[in-house]
């Protein structure tokens, strides 16, 4: 499936940047899930350049980082319940891919991140967020939608503070970068435009890549750091890399 019109992949030094393209909401439907998974799989399959595993940045263009599941696509089908199942399965697979990725990962939250879009950002090893615009928003309580087990697990492991997690999930709080950073939900709030946020994320990723870590080790340590989440998603994706080992 062509990734061309949904996400773009570029290399900046040791950092691989995947950008969700276009001015829209980057809603997670089958096409976008497929595009991101393809881009991530390509990173896994690429030959190492001898300088270590590199690092991933996931970023987005426009006002939104990712505004959640593609509910319009779900509604349009003959069986919305099946389409929701498909999206949840695809999300679990993408999370498995990210957890098993043999390189550090950084989310550049360049705009609003809501629902599964917020969860996607938090699934990365580090998160930097635009200070001047955009919220983290677990929109489910306001939308009247229940939270799936694996998403609850992701939040429990990535937002261990009970109060922060309650505010995010149960109060439907729209958190700015400043608040999210203060409460330890994101690593940094970055001033400026989208490009500045991406540049900051790339700098974090470059620092991580410069450590020259063995990629497989990074992946295994990550799985042990978030074991409950890994166990909920690992039968959906996260296949071992195809590259040969010496």
């Amino acid at each position: 499936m062509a990734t061309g019109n949904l996400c773009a992949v570029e290399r900046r030094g040791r950092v691989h940047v995947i950008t969700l393209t276009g001015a829209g909401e980057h809603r997670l439907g089958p096409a976008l899930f497929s595009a991101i998974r393809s881009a991530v799989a390509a990173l896994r399959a690429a030959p190492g350049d001898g300088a270590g595993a590199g690092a991933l940045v996931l970023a987005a263009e426009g006002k939104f980082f990712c505004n959640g599941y593609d509910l319009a696509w779900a509604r349009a089908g003959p069986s919305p319940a099946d389409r929701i199942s498909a999206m949840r399965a695809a999300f679990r697979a993408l999370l498995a891919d990210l957890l098993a990725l043999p390189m550090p990962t950084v989310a550049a939250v360049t705009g609003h991140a809501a629902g599964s879009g917020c969860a996607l950002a938090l699934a990365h090893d580090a998160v930097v967020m635009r200070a001047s615009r955009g919220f983290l928003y677990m929109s489910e309580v306001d939308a009247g939608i229940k939270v799936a087990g694996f998403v609850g697990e992701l939040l429990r492991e990535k937002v261990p503070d009970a109060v922060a997690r309650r505010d995010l999930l149960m109060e439907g709080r729209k958190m700015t970068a400043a608040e999210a950073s203060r409460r330890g939900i994101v690593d940094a709030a970055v001033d400026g435009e989208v490009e500045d946020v991406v540049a900051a994320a790339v700098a974090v990723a470059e620092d991580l890549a410069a450590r020259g870590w063995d990629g497989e080790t990074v992946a295994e340590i990550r799985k042990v750091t978030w074991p409950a989440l890994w166990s909920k998603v690992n039968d959906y994706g996260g296949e071992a890399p195809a590259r040969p080992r010496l």
Partner: protein
Amino acid sequence: MCTLEQRGRVFVLTLTGDGEHRLGHALISSLRSAVASAAEAAAKAGPGSALVTVGEGRFFSNGLDIGWAGTSRARLGELVDALRPLAADLLALPMPTVAALTGHASAGGFLLALCHDYRIMRGDRGVLYMSEVDIGLPLPPYFGAVLRAKITSANALRDVALRGKKVKAAEGKEMGIVDAVYPSAAETAAEAFKFAEQLAARKWNGGVYASIRMSMFPEACRSVGIVEESDEEKRKHFASKL
């Protein structure tokens, strides 16, 4: 023992009288009835309710009625078992819950306060106190599960459970146990009510709210006997909303 009143969309559950509001069979039973009534009334009224729980006098609740239990282990065991479903009622309640801590909350009383979504406490006096270590009683497993769910700072959890710390409101706020502190009992109660009104005004669907709460604390919910909702059931609900 306790009263339930409805003020607009907020249900106010009051543990009445100047005593310690010790949790014996009678009070626990009354509380369970009251909480069930609130849930029923809310279901009829549609989305947008909240509960505030408050104790009259110097205590929110000083814990299980160990006076009644005396030296009888069997009786103590009964009370521990009787409190568990009340904890479950609160953790499964289909509306936001606020504990207005205008007095001391110890042991089982502290547990009940922790079973609420928010804790608003007076700053001028009163403590939260998990007294078991000092009295020489073990923590029932479900107490441990609720403590672990709600007090996520390892040091705070250790201080509360293992050190028998008497936590005042300001400290409680730093430890992540108390959400807001007000200078007097009257202000605490008033602000807790106001906050509950704000939560009710969000018009959240009660069933969804409870489901999200339970997805945050699955271990604690299992521990108090709540049956977990399957992802399949959640998916069907999601589809019905589209």
